[in-house]
């Protein structure tokens, strides 16, 4: 009977690692998980079997915390809730014990660890489908590491060479990680699918966009300009099958998968891809006050959390710019109390209705069909213009102006909002990025690149936890390594001044 102690799972949903991958379809499920680490919170939708612990499952979602780190810390968003230390994001007073910062760090490294496992499992597999999966896994790991470079600078570093266990990964420097991610993205380019080969999957253009982001921010990351390289990869993007959609809103609706502008999405579906993080959070936290959840947003819930500050609103020509998707009824422009939803204009950018206003076939009371537009062409336009303005070669100022005005024309419906060459300045680019890309998860990175995220050169309401805004500490351009991580891994050193 002693042999009975040797067990294998008897649940058909559980498979030991030795038996898990038999067919291409099995591998595809493993690959789907890597994508899902960005979209979902666990193995059961909308909640259940969570991927990470120590935080409410919905809060621990990758996209939700990525969004919070990139947006709540800037002039673009405030939130009214009382969840743990969430308001420290606005005040820029977060500490290494912050559960949300801890969650995004865990999420990034979780995606890396799962990708490593999949990369090991597919390494050397000559099947053309599986070698493509292999390259995509390397892309997704590079994407997660890219977020680590941007937010934490010097994270733990593990690759497919590190088997799962109870070891202490080494810390890597920001510059070394940059070089690693760059080399990975270059190495996989040929193995990735051609642009738009299958919706939802990372293709060559996704890798180009990620590289372009890294190059654009290289001065911040490694103290070395790489604007020329940015222009080179962006040019490849422009050669792809993408175009600026006619309607700005097409990128943020339930059928945004049909937008010709979308390069790489994180997908959601009302019935099949459900989570209380991600797009459900973003859409529902927008809705409150006198907004109608069902009529305007195609959903049955309103969480009354997110609004914006006057610093964003004031960048807009409210009467003419179609991108000014604000809700002002019952809302005040200025914020007296961040905790009150009616303080600050609300946003109506992301919706769970189709572009034509109808409900989608998979419409659900709460779970949404709207995909997260992680990379879209308009961002490429603005990155190109900025790289040219910052001295990158291989592009032209005229092309830059034309790419910017392409977005202006769409926003204004005609050329009335177009700018002149003289108006095309870096300051203009920073503001235009706010107008075009607000709430799309770029803002913190942009403000850091322009040197105005911390410090006192640019103040917005409630920056530094005062209504008028005040200067903040410059070391907050990076987030701290979470203290739980420092407690668990003696190889790590905290970022400066935390």
């Amino acid at each position: 009977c002693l042999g009975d102690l040797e067990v294998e799972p008897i649940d058909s949903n559980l498979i030991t690692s030795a038996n898990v991958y038999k067919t291409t379809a099995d591998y595809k499920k493993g690959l789907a998980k890597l994508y899902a680490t960005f979209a979902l919170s666990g193995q059961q939708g909308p909640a259940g079997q969570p991927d990470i612990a120590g935080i409410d499952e919905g809060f621990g979602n990758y996209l939700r915390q990525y969004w919070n780190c990139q947006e709540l810390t800037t002039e673009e968003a405030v939130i009214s809730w009382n969840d743990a230390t969430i308001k420290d994001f606005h005040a820029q007073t977060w500490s290494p014990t912050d559960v949300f910062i801890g969650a995004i760090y865990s999420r990034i490294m979780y995606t890396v660890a799962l990708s490593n496992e999949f990369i090991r499992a597919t390494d050397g597999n000559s099947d053309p489908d599986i070698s493509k999966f292999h390259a995509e896994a390397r892309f997704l790991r590079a994407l997660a590491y890219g977020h680590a470079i941007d937010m934490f600078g010097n994270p733990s570093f593990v690759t497919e060479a590190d088997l799962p266990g109870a070891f202490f990964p080494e810390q890597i420097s920001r510059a070394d990680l940059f070089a690693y991610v760059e080399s990975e993205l270059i190495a996989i380019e040929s193995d990735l699918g051609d642009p738009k080969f299958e919706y939802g999957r990372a293709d060559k253009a996704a890798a180009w966009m990620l590289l372009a982001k890294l190059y654009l921010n290289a001065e911040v990351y490694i103290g070395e300009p790489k604007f020329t390289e940015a222009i080179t990869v962006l040019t490849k993007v422009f050669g792809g099958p993408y175009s600026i959609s006619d309607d700005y809103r097409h990128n943020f609706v339930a059928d945004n998968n049909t937008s010709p502008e979308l390069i790489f999405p994180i997908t959601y579906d009302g019935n099949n891809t459900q989570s209380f993080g991600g797009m459900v959070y973003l859409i529902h936290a927008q809705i409150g006050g006198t907004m109608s959840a069902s009529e305007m947003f195609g959903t049955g819930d309103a969480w009354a959390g997110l609004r914006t500050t006057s610093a964003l609103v004031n960048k807009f020509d409210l009467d003419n710019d179609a991108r000014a998707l604000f809700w002002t009824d019952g809302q005040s422009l200025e914020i007296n109390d961040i905790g009150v939803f009616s303080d600050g204009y609300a946003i109506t950018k992301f919706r769970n209705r189709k572009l034509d206003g109808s409900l989608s076939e998979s419409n659900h009371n709460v779970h949404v069909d709207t995909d997260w537009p992680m990379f879209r062409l308009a961002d490429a336009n603005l990155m190109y213009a900025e790289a040219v303005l910052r001295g990158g070669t291989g592009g032209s100022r005229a092309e830059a102006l034309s790419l910017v005005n392409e977005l202006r024309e769409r926003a204004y419906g005609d050329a009335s909002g177009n700018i002149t060459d003289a108006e095309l300045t870096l300051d203009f680019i920073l503001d235009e990025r706010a107008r075009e890309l607000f709430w799309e998860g770029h803002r913190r990175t942009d403000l850091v690149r322009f040197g105005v995220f911390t410090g006192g050169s640019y103040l917005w309401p409630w920056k530094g936890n005062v209504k008028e805004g005040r200067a903040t500490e410059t070391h907050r351009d990076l987030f701290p390594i979470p203290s739980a991580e420092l407690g668990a891994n003696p190889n790590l050193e905290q970022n400066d001044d935390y």
Partner: protein
Amino acid sequence: CATLWAQQSVSGQVKDADEGFGLPGVTVLEKGTNNGTITDVDGYYTITVAEGAVLTFSFVGYQTPEVAVGNRTNISVNMETDLTELSEIVVIGYGQVQKSDLTGAVASVQAKDFNKGVLTSPQDLLVGRIAGVQVTTNSGAPGSAATIRIRGGSSLSASNDPLIVIDGFPVDNTTISGLSNPLSTINPSDIESFTVLKDASATAIYGARASNGVIIVTTKKGQSGKPKFSVSSRTSVSTPIAYVDVLDGDEYRTLVNGLHEEGFSGINDAALNRLGTENTNWQKEIYQTAISQDVNVNASGAIKDIPFRVSYGYTDQEGILKTTYMKRHSISVNTNPSFFNDQLKVNLNVKETLANTGFGDQGAVGAAVNFDPTQSVYADNTKYGGYFAWTTENLPDGTMDPDGPANTFSSNPVALLKLRNNVADVNRLIGNIQFDYALPFLPGLSANLNLGMDRSNTDGIDDALPGSTWTYRDYTGENGRLLDYDATNSSELLDFYLKYKKDFTDHQLELTGGYSYQHFQREGSTFNRNGDQTQVVEDSRYINENFLISFFGRLNYIFKNKYLLTATLRNDGSSRFTGENRWGLFPALAAGWKISEEGFMSAVPVVSNLKLRLGYGVTGQQDVTSNQYPALPIYRESIGGASYQFGDTFVNTLRPDPYDANIKWEETTTYNVGVDYGFFDDRVYGSVELYKRETRDLINNIPIAAGSNFSNFLITNVGNLENEGVEVTLNVRPVLKPDFTWNIGVNFTHNTNQITKLTKTDDPDYQGVAVGAISGGVGNMIQIHTVGYPANSFYVFQQVYGTDGQPLEGLYVNRTGETGAVTSNELNKYHYYSPAPEVLMGFNSRVAYKQFDFSFSSRLSLNNYVYNNLQSGGVLSGLYTTSGGGYFNNITASAANRGFTNPQYWSDTFVENASFFKMDNISLGYSLDKLFTDAIKLHVSLTVQNAFIITNYDGLDPEVSGGIDNNIYPRPRTFLLGLNLSF
């Protein structure tokens, strides 16, 4: 002459003083002579004695009364059971032992001393009875579970529940869905005794499952003699003790209108449009006076020399929260025949229970406290079953559209109860058969085989009827949900051991050695879809199993009846672990010295019993309840709503779960020093215990180095924990007369607990693992595990108070002295007490005078701290929330007084000292020895449970398992009338 000796014949009946039945087999002896007799099956005797004789009546387990005959010819005696009788037999693991020969910390409670009036939850019988054993009923729900902690619990993440052994069958601690309390399938009336094994020398025989103590439940057995019958019935009435003091509708309107006039943020005209005009006391709407009935019938006796006991019980218990109830049928059969001149003894137990439980919606308890008192219970709507519901849309005139889409943040408490159908049927069968065979070739050697099975099956539904607002978020459409679930837990056991017992002149030796095999399997499924049956939300199944295989041995050695030695060794194998970590070896050693047996003690006649005990042992823990395969690399396929879109197809995902190939046993080393004492012929007796427990390699779910495994937390062996404590038991019997007895019992427990290691690295700056989720916000934690502090310590900011003694909102002591907002620096928090009481005392007493008996049981808990989540959540900015279209929330009167604008969850002002004294039950009874005929006895009793509480705590009930008070189903006060008829 020959008639010099005046002789007389005396006859009478000897009866059990409590139960009133005749006691067969009692030795009746004329004192100072060899003249004696034994009572017959009905307890009758006749004896001829000399003039002036004194009769002694003796029987194992009973006190030994002496009666002077005088000139009486009829002497009937009621015999009191004698708990302290050192010859009392105590059931221990794989055997039994005389109490006087125990070397470990063992406590037992017999049926006679159980708390009165317990209907469904057997562990309630023990509340406050045993030093070192804390039983906290989790709530007032019928059949509610209880948290049992023996000596404070030795684990952090693994289970702290003791091992429960029912008639030799160690049961699975995993609770089957549909049954909140695994013990509630045992009818309390069938229980004969509880034995609690507290220290490692006593528990080590159960090795790997014994770290948190062992509770051995023994059910009543058949007895030889003429069949006896008893019928008992109890009827009870339960009512809520108190209601949370919230604002009524008028007070609430005054508060809200006042804030509106002040221009309070958020309470604008749109909000006032949603304010109602009613005065609804929601708490009164959800509670009821609950009436419960309980009937037990049992027969025991012998048929053709085969002793049997059969009992049937039916309980119909109503909860004070509407729609909650538990109905239970239980049948218990025992027979224990002997064969071949008693060489083979067989003991068969079968217990079957059918329980039908209505769980209601316990969220209604909190909802009733929070729901807007200005709204009516019913409203003019078509969508929500006619119950008032908040909706997300307004009518053109600005008032709420009663038929708009539902708000999912706040639900009508009455609708929560009436529109939810949450019931389950559970069927549990526990049976075992034991063979005890005295091997003929070697006297003293016996073989014991125990075969058992335990099978529970649940069939449950948890439907939300059309009109439910709270399910709106998860389901397509508006017709609620349909949810069916089922589960089956089963376990099979085979124990075999040999026992050799030999008495030499000065030596007594007992050797036990055996093998145990147990298999556990749990499976179940959930099918959850929307009410229209157009969307399947969950269609899941699970099944898992684990095995435990063990070898064990024990040596008991007694020298000159003074010096005792017990040595135990158990080798356990668990399927949860792999490789060399699979087997764990658990040794224990204990010694005892019966000092009172020493010659020199005869000079101290006041001391009737004195024994010193020393014990040491190692026990284990392998109950990784969350994962049966923690050491295996396993992939898990996603279910319902967790697939990912590639092109036009949705692909299920495959995820590697985190695992630790090297996970092993958690080990607890226990040191115990005990003294048993008895003075004045055991009129005063008890024990004192000192112990220390060190747990190493805690099975802990801890943060791990990111990237090293497949999650940020991993179940692994990290951390050490220490418990130290003192337990004192004192029993006094001031009066001991045949028709008047008085017992007083006091027990005292003091336990301290400290985490001594928590991480693999010893980072001194590491604050610890946040635990203790509170209500309000998401993911907010109030407690922490930190090295150097008790587990679950509250971790809070130090409140600053104004000159008037009122807390100043948002002002805290800057304990680090660093610049910046105090609340932005977690290091400004400090460790502030823990929920574990510093001192626990139990007081109980029983007086029997002639036909009357009176007893009570009470508890004192000192310095148990409770976080009052009701108070911390009550703030002015929470009165109106715009989420879900906007809704009002009520607030307690004291929170309104405090007047905080925003939540200050981490203020230490909300961590209250919840010391309390509770009168758990008081019972008064009257026995009628003769109802119509001598053969029929009647006992009538009136019991009050939860009679009163004395406390300074500002919530409803200071007894909060886990220390976070957040609207638990209140424990009612119950009046109970009991009738017991025996014949």
